[in-house]
C-alpha cells in the first residue's frame, strides 16, 4: 500500500516533468540511455556479450551444439533464445521457475531475432531431417534498471555477432567436428528492438524502472536493417490510440537506426 502511494507521487512528478518535455534523468522523450556493449566476456562460450543500458545490465552467452531438427522443420537449424532475471538483479525477483513476465521477456527477445530472420537457419543444416547446428542464446539480467526487453535483445544480437561457429564435415552419414576451423554465423540482417512506454499522453523511449512502475502501457517494436517492422508486443494494463502506435512505429525506426550503427561495429 505504502508503495502504491509512492508510485502515485512518482507518477505525479514524472508527469509534471513530461509536460515540460523533460524526464527525471534529463533525457528527451525519444532518447535512449547510454548503451555500452562488450563482447567475448565469456571466453568458454561460442559467443557472448555484456550490455549496459543505463542501469540495466545483461550478460548473454551463445552455445553451439549438434542437434536434431524439429519434426517437419528438417531443413532448418535450431535457434533458441532464453532470458532470465537473476535474483541478484532485483530485490523483488525470487528464485524458481520463470513467471509470466520472464516468459514474455524471453519470447519477445526470441521473436525479434526469429521474425527478422537475422540468421539464415537453412545454412545451419548438416544432414537434412537428421542433423543440424543448434544455437542457444541465453541472456541473464544481472542488474535490473528498466527496459529489459531492449537490453536482452541487444545482448543477444551482440552475442550472436561475436559468435564463432565450429565447422562440421559429414562423414559416413554423421557429422564430424573439424578441429580449429570456425566461421561466422550466417547473418542476414540486424534486428533492433525499441521499447516505449506511455505515461498519460506522453510516449517515452527506453523507460527506466521508475518510469515503468508508473507507466500506463508499453510497446516493443523490432525492425530489421531494411527498415521493415518485424515484431511487435504491446504490454501493460492500458492501451494506445492508433495514432500513438503509428508514432511509436516511426520512433522505433528512427531510434533503431542509431542502435543498429552501434551493433554494426561488432560485425
Amino acid at each position, binding site marked *: 500500500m505504502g508503495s502504491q502511494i509512492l508510485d502515485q507521487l512518482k507518477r505525479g512528478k514524472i508527469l509534471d516533468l513530461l509536460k515540460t518535455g523533460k524526464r527525471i534523468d534529463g533525457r528527451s522523450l525519444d532518447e535512449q540511455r547510454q548503451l555500452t556493449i562488450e563482447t567475448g566476456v565469456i571466453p568458454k562460450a561460442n559467443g557472448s556479450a555484456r550490455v549496459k543500458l543505463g542501469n540495466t545490465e545483461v550478460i548473454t552467452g551463445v552455445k553451439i551444439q549438434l542437434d536434431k531438427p524439429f519434426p517437419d522443420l528438417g531443413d532448418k537449424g535450431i535457434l533458441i533464445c532464453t532470458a532470465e532475471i537473476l535474483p541478484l538483479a532485483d530485490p523483488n525477483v525470487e528464485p524458481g521457475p520463470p513467471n509470466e513476465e520472464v516468459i514474455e521477456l524471453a*519470447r519477445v527477445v526470441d521473436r525479434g531475432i526469429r521474425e*527478422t530472420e537475422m540468421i539464415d537457419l537453412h545454412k545451419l543444416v548438416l544432414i537434412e531431417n537428421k542433423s543440424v547446428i543448434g544455437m542457444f542464446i541465453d541472456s541473464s539480467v544481472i542488474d535490473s534498471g528498466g527496459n529489459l526487453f531492449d537490453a536482452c535483445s541487444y545482448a543477444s544480437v551482440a552475442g550472436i555477432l561475436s559468435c564463432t561457429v565450429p565447422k562440421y564435415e559429414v562423414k559416413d552419414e554423421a557429422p564430424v567436428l573439424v578441429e580449429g576451423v570456425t566461421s561466422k554465423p550466417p547473418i542476414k540482417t540486424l534486428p533492433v528492438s525499441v521499447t516505449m512506454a506511455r505515461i498519460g499522453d506522453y510516449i517515452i523511449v527506453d523507460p527506466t524502472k521508475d518510469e515503468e512502475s508508473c507507466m500506463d502501457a508499453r510497446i516493443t517494436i523490432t525492425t530489421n536493417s531494411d527498415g521493415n517492422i518485424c*515484431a511487435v508486443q504491446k*504490454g501493460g494494463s*492500458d492501451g494506445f490510440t492508433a495514432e500513438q502506435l503509428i508514432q511509436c512505429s516511426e520512433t522505433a525506426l528512427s531510434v533503431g537506426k542509431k542502435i543498429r550503427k552501434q551493433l554494426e561495429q561488432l560485425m
Partner: protein
Amino acid sequence: MVKIMTQLMTEDGIRCDGRKLDELRDISIKVGVLKNADGSAYIEFGKNKILAGVFGPRDVHPKHMANQDSGILRCRYHMSPFSVTERKNPAPSRREIEISKVIKEALQPAVILKDYPRTVIDVFIEVLQADGGSRCAALDAASVALADAGIPMRDLVSACAAGKVADRIVLDVNNEEDQEGQADMPVALMPNVGKITLLQLDGMLKPEEFKTCMQTALIGCRRVYEIQRKALMEKYFQSGDQ
C-alpha cells in the same frame, strides 16, 4: 516429409478459403452457455471453437496476492489436448502462458476493478479447436463472458487479426495464411473508447504496410464488436431459451 505448398491467393485476390481480402470468417457467439460460471460465452470464429467462463469478483487465494486498493484480474488461456493436429500435452506451455498474459492485459483496461478491492475476477478460456487467430477469438469470447457475469466494464474488447499474404494486406488471417503468410498482426480494440489494448506482430511489414495492416485489423475489430453486441442483446433483451 512431403510439404504441399498451398497457393494462398489467386491473382484476383481470392484467398485459399474463398474469402475476399477484407472478409471475416464466419463468427457466431453464444452467451451464458455454462451453468456454473458467473458468466460465459462460446465462440466459433472460423474453425476456432472456444469457451470462456468468468468467476468473480470473489475472494483471492492465496491471500497474499490480493490488492488492498483494487480488484485483480487473472486470466488463463488453455488449449485442449485434442484442439490441434498433434495431441497437445495438457500442461500449460510457455506459449499459452504468454497468451494468457497478453489477453489479461488486453481485457484489463475495460474492466472496472477499483470497486472490488481484495477480490479477484478469474477468466478461464478453453480452446476446444484451434485455428488461426485463436487469441483474438478467445479475447472476443472472454470480453462477452465478462459482460455476461455482470462485471462493470468501460467498453467491450473486440479483437481481430490482419496480416500480409502473397504481398497483400488481408483481414482475419486463417491457419494456412498464418503459417505460410508473411505477417500476422492480432489487434484488440475498445471500440467506443478508441483504445488498442492488444497489438502483436510476427512477420515483416514495410512502415506503410504496418499502418494499413493495423487499420484493416481495426475495421475487423469493429465488425466483431457488432457481433458481440448482438449476442449479448439476444440473451438480455429477447427471450433467450438456450
